[in-house]
C-alpha cells in the first residue's frame, strides 16, 4: 500500500525522525561547505570594496544605530574578512560552538560598512540566513545530526519566506497590475543604463528585444515571476520542493536575461537545495556496494 504524503511542516523542514543515511550526511556537509565558502567570498568582496568608501551617503540596517565610519579609511574591513574566514573554518571543523555565531555578527558589521552608499542588494540574504541557521544549530542542538538538520531546515524555511514575501511586497506596492509589461520596459531601460555605466556600452539581447516588442510577452514574463514567487513557500515541503525550486531558478534565469541581474550565490544555493541529492547519493552508494 502506498504511504500517504506527510505534510507536517516540521517533519518536512527538519526531518528529525528520519533515519540517518550517508547520503544525507554528505549532502548536508556539501551545503554547509557552500555556506562557509559563500560567507568567505562575501566577507572579502565587501571588505575590499569598503576600502574605497570614505563618506556615508545613507546608513542602512545596523549602521542606523552604530556609527559605522570606524570601518572606513583604514584596513579594518580586511582584518574583519580574515577573522570571519577563520571563524567559519573553525565552525565547519566543529572546533567550538560559537564561531559561526560570532562570524555572523561580524558579517553584519562588514555588510553595514559596505552598503552605506544608498542601496543594499538582496543577493546575499540566502547565504546569510544559511549561516544563521548553522550558527543556531551549533548553539542550541546537542549532537551533530540535529545541528546540521536544523541548519538545513532553517534555510528552507527562510528561503520560502523570502521569495513569498517578495511577491507580497509587489502586490502590496503595485496591486494586481504589477505584471503590466510596461513595467518591464521601464526596468529593461533602467538596467541598460546600468550596463552603459558598467562597461560604456549596451547591446540588448534577444529576450530583451522580444519583451520590448510585445506588451503581451513582457506581461507574461512578469506574471510567471510573480506566480513563482507567490508559491515559493511550497519549498517547505519535500514533495513540492524540487518543482518550486526549479520555478525559482527559472525566475532567476528570466531576471538575468531580461534585466542582466544574476544573483549567482542564490542560483548556486538553489541548485544545491533543489534536488534530492541525498537520495541520489544513497542510491549511488548502494549501487557501488552491490557491484
Amino acid at each position, binding site marked *: 500500500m502506498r504511504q500517504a504524503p506527510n505534510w507536517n511542516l*516540521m*517533519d518536512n*523542514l*527538519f526531518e*528529525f525522525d528520519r533515519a540517518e543515511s550517508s547520503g544525507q550526511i554528505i549532502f548536508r556537509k556539501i551545503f554547509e561547505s557552500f555556506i562557509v565558502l559563500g560567507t568567505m567570498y562575501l566577507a572579502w568582496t565587501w571588505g575590499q*570594496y569598503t576600502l*574605497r*568608501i*570614505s*563618506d556615508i*551617503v*545613507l546608513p*542602512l*540596517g*545596523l549602521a*542606523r544605530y552604530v556609527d559605522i565610519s570606524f570601518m572606513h579609511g583604514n584596513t579594518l574591513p580586511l582584518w574583519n574578512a580574515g577573522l570571519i574566514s577563520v571563524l567559519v573554518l573553525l565552525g565547519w571543523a566543529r572546533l567550538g560552538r560559537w564561531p559561526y555565531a560570532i562570524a555572523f555578527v561580524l558579517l*553584519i558589521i562588514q*555588510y*553595514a560598512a559596505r*552598503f552605506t*552608499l*544608498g*542601496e*543594499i542588494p*538582496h543577493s*546575499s*540574504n540566502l*547565504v*546569510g*540566513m544559511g*549561516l544563521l541557521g548553522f550558527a*543556531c544549530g551549533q548553539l*542550541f542542538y546537542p549532537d551533530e545530526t*540535529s545541528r546540521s538538520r*536544523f541548519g538545513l*531546515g*532553517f534555510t528552507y524555511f*527562510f528561503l520560502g519566506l*523570502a521569495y513569498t*514575501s*517578495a511577491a507580497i*511586497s*509587489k502586490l502590496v*506596492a*503595485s496591486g494586481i497590475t504589477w*505584471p*503590466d509589461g*510596461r*513595467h518591464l*520596459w*521601464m526596468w529593461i*531601460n*533602467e538596467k541598460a*543604463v*546600468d550596463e*552603459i*555605466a*558598467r*562597461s560604456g556600452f549596451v547591446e540588448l539581447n534577444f529576450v530583451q528585444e522580444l519583451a520590448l516588442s510585445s506588451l503581451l510577452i513582457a506581461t507574461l514574463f*512578469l506574471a510567471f515571476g510573480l506566480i513563482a514567487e507567490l508559491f515559493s513557500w511550497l519549498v517547505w515541503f519535500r514533495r513540492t520542493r524540487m518543482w518550486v525550486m526549479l520555478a525559482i531558478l527559472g525566475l532567476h534565469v528570466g531576471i538575468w536575461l531580461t534585466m542582466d541581474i544574476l544573483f549567482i550565490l542564490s542560483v548556486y544555493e538553489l541548485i544545491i537545495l533543489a534536488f534530492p541529492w541525498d537520495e541520489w547519493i544513497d542510491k549511488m552508494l548502494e549501487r557501488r556496494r552491490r557491484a
Partner: protein
Amino acid sequence: MNGKALAKKARTIGTVVLVVYAVTVATNLGEFWPFSIYPMFSQGGNNWSRSLVREFPEDDSTSWEVVGLADVPGAPFSVKKMGVDPIDLANFVSKTTIWDSVRVAALRNMFFGSETPLYQIVIYRVRGELTEDHEVLVEATPYVLLSPKGDQVNPEVQQ
C-alpha cells in the same frame, strides 16, 4: 532528545528569529541584513534614477545641458575598470542632496582613491519615466565633473 523535542526546539528558535526578523525589517524599511525582505522591483512603473559616466578631452568646455540618452556627449567610460559598482554610483548621485566639498571628494575617492584624477570625466544622473503615450523617456543631466585640474558641480544641482 527525541524527534518531537527537537522539533519543538526548532519551532521556538524559528519563532524567536521570526520576531527579530519582523522587528528589524519593520524599523528599517524592510532592510536589515540578512533579514531583509525582497522589495526589489515591487513598485512597477515608477520613475527611476541611475547614473553613467562619459570621458572628455582635458580642457574641453563643460556643458550642463540636459540631453536624451542617445545624445549624451563624450566618450564611453566604464566604471567597472575603476572598480566602481554602477548601482553604488547611481545611489551616490541620486541620494546626495547637498553637493558640498566633502561629498565631491568622496565621489573622487570612489573613482581615483587619493590620486589625482587621470581623466576628465562627467558623472550624469539619468532619469527614466513612462510617458502618457506609454513610452519610456530617458534623460541625462550632467552633475559633477572630475578632472586633473579640479572638480566642478552643475550650478543648478548645487543650489
